């Protein structure tokens, strides 16, 4: 698994390009067999959940965000340079915002989170390195 691809996925997430982000992380997830596998899947499901929300599929969004949170909770506050605690909090707030309103379920797009990432080689798990 390589750092450059990982950082591309994070950038895509933070740029609001959630489908591209899911694609990037999915390619990594398909190859990853170590401790980061479920973390990558949590990121994918977080991105896909947000994507569903922006497309008006709040039922699908809720399902994906819940799956994402169930995986991300398995990891420490910071992991692979990402502030996981902040991401969990923000995704949970987004999920909780799916309330009723005029016209049915709505969500607040201002609650779409970004990933707080710091390039920190010391924070890498053994199987996520700079090597491709």
């Amino acid at each position: 698994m390589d750092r450059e691809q990982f950082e591309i996925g994070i950038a895509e997430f933070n740029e609001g390009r959630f489908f591209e982000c899911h694609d990037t992380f999915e390619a990594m997830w398909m190859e990853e067999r170590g401790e980061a596998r479920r973390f990558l899947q949590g990121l994918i499901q977080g991105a896909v959940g947000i994507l569903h929300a922006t497309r008006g599929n709040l039922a699908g969004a809720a399902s994906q965000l819940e799956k994402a949170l169930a995986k991300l909770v398995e990891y420490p506050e910071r992991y692979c340079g990402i502030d996981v605690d902040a991401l969990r909090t923000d995704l949970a707030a987004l999920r909780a915002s799916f309330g009723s309103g005029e016209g049915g379920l709505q969500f607040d797009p201002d609650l779409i989170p970004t990933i707080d990432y710091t390039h920190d080689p010391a924070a890498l798990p053994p199987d996520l390195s700079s090597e491709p």
Partner: protein
Amino acid sequence: MAIYITTDCINCGACEPECPNTAIYEGGANWTLAGVTYGGDDPAPGGATGFWSADYFYIVPDKCTECVGYHDEPQCAAVCPVDVCLPDPNNVESHEELELKNEYLNVIDPDRRR
């Protein structure tokens, strides 16, 4: 049908090429079995309805054997990054039933195999 695709499918298409029975179709597409083409409102020959989707990938019940006969686990579920290929609680089939289904499919539609 043993596996179904939920509506939080992302339409990435990772599952479709993995199915050894070509049971997975893109949303909106017609599906085929034993040389016959079916559309959105058509029930499956086995009687199942409501599985077709215009918006998401879907699995044809009559063609899904949960990969029994090919793999140790359903391959669609194994490659799905968002866990939307799930066992259908409304259509539970035993391993033996799935084996028999696969044998039946080999007779009526041997060309379905990927």
